């Protein structure tokens, strides 16, 4: 049975956590993700979950304790944002190397400095190569749905990797939206039981976890993480389909919005996709062949699938909500354009760095981006391949 309710992104993620009912949550508050932890603590206080909640003294300890709990055979979760994620950076690749399927809601927020509490994607983008699965959400509904699927994906025997599910800080985390929530029993059934592959508490099979791994084995272990990440791809699709069958909303690596016959398109992630869809509709009403590709899964990066979806388009503009500071544009641009490199037919790809530190990405900005991209599609050379939008 489903229920239609009004929830913010944070409330929806906390609700998903209640339904997942993890054995351990170790977390530390940080704006704009604090609410997730606050709401969840109330669930603990009210006895609505079986969780042992560890109110740690830092995000580093949050991830350390979550790692250890997961290694001890518990389904373990934490949640954070921005500086909190930065403090966890040291631990993130250790979690993936130990193949611990921790699921973490992460509310995307700019990283200091200067200090700023609003949305951009620099926090998780800086963690993109730590062996975590990265799933972005466009809205509150997706945040809820992604959380439930992330548990299945992370814990899948072919995968066994940690996953972060992100929402855009304040834009989704604090925005009240109408969403569909499944009943507890159905979610419990969908999520299933956690079957740990390594268990520190198994006294009959004592294990040493976190050994020193030198020249003769480290490389193989890292290679296995890469392999697991590849294997996550069919699992993500399979679980996205199953979720669709059960709950009516199917998920893939990305969403194509009026893209198949598009001549020019935008690629973006998170809440910007909602605005971009409105602009696409508007342009389509005017007879222009505009489209959108919204990336949902950034790791594993669906390279081939994205290349196929974009190869027949004439011009593509990527909106990056984080900067590479004189890298080859932002990270999304760099990877999308690289994915297309080997295609015989491929679009001109340009990048717009936008929305840093919560700077609004307005409909007008997106309209400008589409209109500039349309000109490139009709044969004009781009002024620059990497530009900034909405900065003074």
């Amino acid at each position: 049975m489903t229920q239609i309710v009004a929830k913010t992104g944070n409330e929806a993620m906390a609700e998903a956590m209640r339904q997942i009912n993890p054995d351990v949550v170790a977390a530390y508050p940080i704006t704009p993700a604090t609410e997730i932890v606050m709401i969840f603590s109330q669930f603990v206080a009210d006895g609505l979950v079986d969780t042992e909640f560890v109110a740690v003294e830092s995000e580093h300890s949050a991830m350390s304790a979550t790692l250890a709990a997961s290694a001890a055979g518990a389904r373990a979760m934490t949640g954070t944002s921005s500086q909190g994620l930065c403090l966890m950076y040291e631990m993130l690749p250790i979690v993936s190397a130990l193949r611990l399927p921790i699921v973490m809601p992460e509310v995307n927020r700019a990283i200091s400095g200067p200090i700023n509490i609003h949305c951009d994607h620099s926090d998780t983008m800086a963690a993109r190569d730590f062996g975590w699965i990265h799933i972005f959400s466009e809205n509150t509904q997706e945040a809820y749905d992604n959380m439930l699927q992330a548990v299945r994906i992370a814990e899948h025997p072919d995968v066994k990797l940690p996953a972060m599910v992100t929402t855009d800080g304040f834009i989704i985390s604090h925005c009240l939206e109408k969403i569909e929530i499944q009943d507890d029993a159905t979610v419990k059934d969908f999520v299933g039981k956690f079957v740990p592959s390594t268990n520190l508490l198994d006294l009959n099979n004592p294990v040493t976890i976190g050994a020193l791994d030198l020249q003769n084995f480290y490389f193989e272990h890292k290679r296995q993480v890469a392999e697991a990440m590849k294997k996550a791809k069919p699992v993500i699709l399979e679980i996205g389909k199953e979720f669709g069958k059960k709950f009516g909303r199917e998920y893939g690596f990305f969403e194509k919005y009026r893209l198949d016959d598009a001549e020019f398109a935008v690629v973006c992630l998170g809440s910007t996709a909602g605005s971009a869809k409105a602009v696409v509709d508007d342009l389509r009403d005017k007879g222009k062949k505009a489209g959108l590709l919204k990336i949902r899964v950034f790791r594993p990066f669906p390279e081939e699938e994205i290349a196929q979806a974009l190869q027949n388009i004439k011009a593509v503009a990527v909106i990056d909500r984080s900067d590479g500071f004189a890298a080859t544009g932002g990270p999304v641009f760099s990877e999308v354009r690289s994915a297309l490199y080997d295609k015989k037919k491929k679009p001109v790809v340009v990048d717009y760095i936008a929305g840093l530190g919560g700077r609004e990405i307005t409909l007008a900005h997106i309209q400008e981006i589409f209109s500039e991209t349309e000109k490139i599609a009709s044969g004009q050379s781009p002024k620059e391949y990497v530009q900034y939008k909405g900065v003074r």
Partner: protein
Amino acid sequence: MATLKELSQREDRLTGGHRMCPGCGAPIIVRQVLMAVKGPVIVSCATGCLEVSTTIFPFSAWKTPFIHSAFENSAATMSGVEAAYTSLKRQGKLKEEIKFIAFGGDGGTYDIGFQSLSGAMERGHDMLYVCYDNEAYMNTSIQRSSATPRGASTTTEPAGKVRQGKRMSRKDLTECMVAHNIPYAAQSVCGDWRDLTRKVEKAMSIKGPKFINVLQPCQLGWGYPMEKTVEMGKLAIDTCFWNLYEVENGKYTISYRPKEKRPLVDFLKPQARFRHLFKPENKALLEELQAEVDRNWELLQKKAECFKP
């Protein structure tokens, strides 16, 4: 307390064949600590000498479940393990009674892991934290830590033409732990198996967070012959450079009073790290160090005095 005979019949949970230095005190401490625990015990360890030398993949010297993930988080790691245990037990998914011990060197405990330790002790996890305190970052070649005593030469605060080794006195971590109002905090020393065994047994009989700070002579970092480790520990307590005591629910008890308190130089002289102190121009500094030891010993006796029945 378990007798030596009883202890000798218990399983060694840190097996030989690890790659600690000859004469290292850390494995002596670990073996004695684990031997003093009856029943299953799970161990966490900070990155450091002990961890890198006992877990070189695909080998492990640990015959009990062991977890390491990083340098500064042995206490937070054990918090997570203990939380998992508590949760699974409450849910009826686990039956066994298990004990939890976190190890860290002085770098991983006094310095980079201080916050993690403080947090875990304050939260009240049912665990024992054991610091094997060898008074410097030995794993990376003898850099100063906040446990390094004043006057000791280390590679990041060496003795030189104008400086005489470490300028500041060591941090009193055991007192920091006492200030956390935990049920049990104590100091012990490598080599006094009776003291360490008794303290571990007592700690394990108490529910909640416990802390034992064990001085561990390090032949490499201190600069003494490798067969003298236990002797160095004995000199440390006979000079009152390091005092054996315990604090149970705030109540101080001195565990060892030397019959005759030996002069500090007896402890300093055999060690290369203090060699420069014996130059004639450092006489005043030596006197200050002796005065500091005397002051600390006096203070500890006064504290213990307060709790005499």
